[in-house]
Structures are given as C-alpha cells and as structure tokens.
C-alpha cells in the first residue's frame, strides 16, 4: 500500500509533518535563545538582590518574594472555593436549572481575556473594597482568574470516584457530608491536586491582570503583609523588557529562565500525580 502512494500524497504528508514539527522547533528556538541570552546572568546574587539602575547588580528577590506571596494567597482563596463549587455541581447540583446556569457561566468566564479580570480587580478589590494596590487585591484577582481551571479539574476528579462507593457509604448510614469527607474527597484528592498545580502554574505566569490591578514595577523591598504593595516575577521581566539597553534584556532572559524552570517543576509534579492517579484506576 505505502509503496503505491503517489508522490503528491507523500509530499502532503511531509507538509503536514512540517506544520506539526515546525512550531515545536519554534518552541525549542525560544527556549534555546533565552538560555543563551540569560544563563550568564543567573547566579545566587541575581536571585538574592534587589532591582537596580545598574543592570549587572540588579536581582529578582522582591519579584520572587512577591510571586510567592501572590501564589500562596491565590491558592488559599481559589482552592477551597473551586473545590466547593465542584462538589456542589457534581454531588448536589444534579440536573437542576441553577447548576446548568452556573456551568454555562463558568465556561463563559474561562473565555474572558485575563486583562479584563484586571479591570474587575481594579474596580472591585482595589477601589470599591478599598484594598489598594496590595498583595491581597492581586491574589483575589488571580484567584477569580484561575477558578474555572480549579473547578473543571476538581469536577473531573470527582467523576472518577465510582458511584458504588458513594452508595456503599450511604448504605452504611453515612450522611452526605460524611460520604464526601471520608469517601469521595480522599479518592478525588490526587486529581484535585493536579488541577490545583496547573492553576498555580497558570497564575505564576500571569502578567496583564497584575499590571492593571497595580503591581509596582520597581520595588526595593520584600512584601511583609497581605496589604503590602508588591511586584511579581513577570512584572519585573516586563519592566526589563521595556528598557532599550541590551544589559536589561539579558536580565529579562535570566528572569524568564527562572519563571520557566518554576513552571516546568510544577507541571512535572502535576504529570507525576496524574500518573499515580491513572495507575490506581482499575
């Protein structure tokens, strides 16, 4: 069969393969170029220094600290709400009209551009609630942004729990809450955690909403409270990219390496968790 394939068909296959492999080549180019540009700047002092007007002395300490504050706070807000919403939709909502409306609404929210979440955060958290341009305002904004991811992943995880286990639990006289707490949630936990890691990985790279909410781009201190002003790693990178001097572009490349390495570790952890989950399935 393959020997009889026409030249035009073979050519078309090649074009299709090139269209698939080409973008992956671009990805490799992107990573390779960033590594070449930034690897020289990577050092302990780059991680442990404050930003500076002198590119060679500048570092990302406030940016990394700000990102850590943001991510932990975001997770603390988004995870309970996201898992709660997933539990409601999967375990209580059923086919009710309200559940349908919430489902459609979540699908719509997933398509809203992230910069508009920034405007929401600016209008509601920074202004109306008076939180100012603070860690908590940024984290609350990011939490709403990643909520659809957490909800979708948690629902999928809840669906993998066999109904027989729920029924067995009820048959033993357990209440709905007891069933959720002792049977359903423990089984769904790896899947929920996978979703949580993916959501955090998304939040770490987000730039536009934080700029709109008012992250500062030149910060010479480490945030020490939820109401402190802050910067974040992507914001610091943006600040350096916006400068014309070559030396700052190298700093940006080094910052990108740190950002991508962090995301790589997080995603690897998510993949490992998913594997463990898959291995457990019958």
């Amino acid at each position: 069969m393959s020997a009889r394939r026409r030249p035009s068909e073979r050519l078309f296959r090649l074009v299709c393969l090139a269209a698939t492999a080409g973008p992956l080549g671009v990805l490799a180019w992107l990573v390779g170029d960033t590594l070449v540009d930034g690897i020289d700047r990577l050092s302990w002092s780059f991680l442990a220094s404050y930003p500076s007007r002198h590119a060679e002395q500048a570092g990302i300490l406030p940016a990394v600290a700000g990102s850590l504050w943001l991510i932990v706070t975001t997770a603390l807000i988004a995870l309970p709400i996201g898992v709660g919403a997933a539990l409601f939709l999967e375990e209580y909502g059923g086919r009710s009209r309200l559940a349908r409306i919430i489902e459609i609404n979540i699908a719509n929210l997933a398509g809203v551009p992230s910069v508009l979440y920034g405007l929401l955060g600016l209008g509601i958290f920074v202004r109306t609630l008076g939180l100012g341009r603070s860690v908590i305002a940024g984290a609350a904004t990011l939490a709403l942004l990643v909520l659809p991811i957490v909800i979708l992943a948690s629902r999928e995880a809840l669906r993998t729990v066999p109904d027989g286990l729920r029924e067995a639990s009820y048959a033993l006289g357990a209440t709905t809450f007891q069933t959720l707490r002792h049977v359903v949630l423990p089984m769904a936990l790896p899947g929920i955690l996978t979703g949580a890691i993916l959501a955090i990985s998304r939040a770490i790279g987000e730039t536009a909403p934080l700029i709109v909410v008012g992250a500062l781009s030149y910060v010479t201190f480490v945030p020490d409270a939820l109401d402190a002003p802050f910067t974040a790693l992507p914001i610091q990178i943006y600040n350096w990219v916006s400068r014309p001097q070559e030396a700052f572009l190298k700093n940006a490349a080094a910052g990108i390496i740190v950002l991508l390495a962090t995301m790589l570790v997080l995603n690897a952890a998510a993949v490992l968790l998913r594997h463990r989950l898959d291995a457990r399935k019958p």
Partner: protein
Amino acid sequence: MNRTTASTGFERAVYAALLSCALVSIVTTVGILYVLASETVAFFTEVSLSEFLLDTQWTPLFADKHFGIWPLVAGTALTSSVAIATAVPLGLLSAIYMSEFAPRRLRAVLKPGLEILAGVPTIVYGYFALVVVTPVLQAWIPDMAGFNALSPGIVMGIMILPMVSSLSEDAIAAVPATLREGAYALGATELATIFRVVLPAASSGIVASVILALSRAIGETMIVAIAAGQQARFTLDPRVPIETMTAYIVQISMGDTPTGTLEYRTIFAVGSVLFVLTFAMNYLSHKLRRRLTLAE
C-alpha cells in the same frame, strides 16, 4: 433523634457553603459586567458615542484629546489577523497529520508537545517576539520598524495554534468512518478524501476552533504590549508601531493616571468593547460546537 436534627442542620449548612462557592462564579460575571458598565457609562457622559465611533484618532493622553476607538480596533484587527493567518494553516495541517497520518507513538509525543505552546507565559512570548523574531523580520522586510504588528502577530499565532489543532482534530476524528470508506470505495485518492470529504464534514468544528482562537488573539495582551508598540494608529500596515485595545489598557495601567479622571475611564470603555467582541466570538464558537455534538 437529637443527633439526626443536629446532623440535618449541619448538612444544610454544608449545602449552603458549597452553594455559595458555586455562586462565586456568578458574582464574578456580575462584577465584571458591573465594573465595565458603570465606568463606561461615566465615560460616555463626557465623550459622545458618535465621537467614540466616528473619530479616527485616539489620543486621550495628548493636549488635543480625541476618543475615536478605530485606531485601537485596527491595531487589534491587524495583530489578530496575522495570528490567525499563522495559526489556521499550521494548526489545520497538524490536525490532519495527527488524526490521519501520525503513527501512534509519534502522536503521543507531538500532541503534548503542541499543548506546551499554549502554556508558555505570554510575557515570554513577548520577549521572544521583540528580541528574536523582529530582528529576523527586519533582515528580510525593508522598512520594518522595531515595534510592529507582524512579529507579535506571528508569535501569537504560534501560541494559539494548539487551540486550532486540538479542536480541529476532535472535529476531524468525529467524521464517521463510513464517509471515508465511501470515498475510498468510489476510488477517491487519499488527498481527495481528506479535502473533499473529511474536511467539509468537519467544517463546523474547524470554524468553531478558528473563532475561539480569534477570540483568544483579540484578548491577548502582553505579546502586543511588548512587541507591537504603544502608538494608536489608524493603519493596516503591519510594519509600523501600532497599539491594540489590550496594550492600551496596559499602557494606562503602567502610568499613574488618577482614579475618576476621563483618562482612567477610557480603559473601562476600551475594556467593554473588548468584552463584547470576545464574548460574541466565544458564544458563536460554542453554538457551532454544540451543533457538531448534536449532529453526531
């Protein structure tokens, strides 16, 4: 007996708590609509709708202020068109490769590989567009400015490619095998089968994926804020600096525009236009995909 009552009370509290978690998403939507609408209404008490829609200059930060949205719309249309022109051919061909040709083992590597493209932070793509792609384009194309629509457009196309390829692949995979077999039975070649039978049958799913990708391109912010420039310009020339709607919101947010001023409100007015555009496209794409699943 007491225990049961206590437990039902508790159960009801759990239900209420979970319900309120689910309602957060509704509150978010209402919040977005409220913030955009209230500031946009305030904007239009100072700027007339006709100026917004008929003026061809956008200069809210200049002494001579103009509030015509078209330069920002043109900038957005330009970068998004370049992105779509990049993502659709590549995405469609790779969808065909994945569903029709790729050996299983290769597919198992390529598919997650492509998904990574959608997960790279946009700030990284912005750096790549500015530092790598633009200089390459400048070497090829005369009069290419350091900030332009072409470079971020192409890079954005790479970013949204996985969306086109994976949704199109789903649509192609959903084409019934009997249609292909029928085509082969009639003596059609492989290429004829793909282009005359499979792709037309999958067309509504493919169109849905393209619309969704377009919506993503319109809302994309950092790539264009970094590499396309921040000069609102009513042009369709991809070689010169322009400004998109999203980049304008970033530009104002980076400065220190005081709350409640007209300049501050412009970002919400622009945000409203952005919301309406992306929402309409997401809705259209959703309708098309629904039709597809119903047809199965």
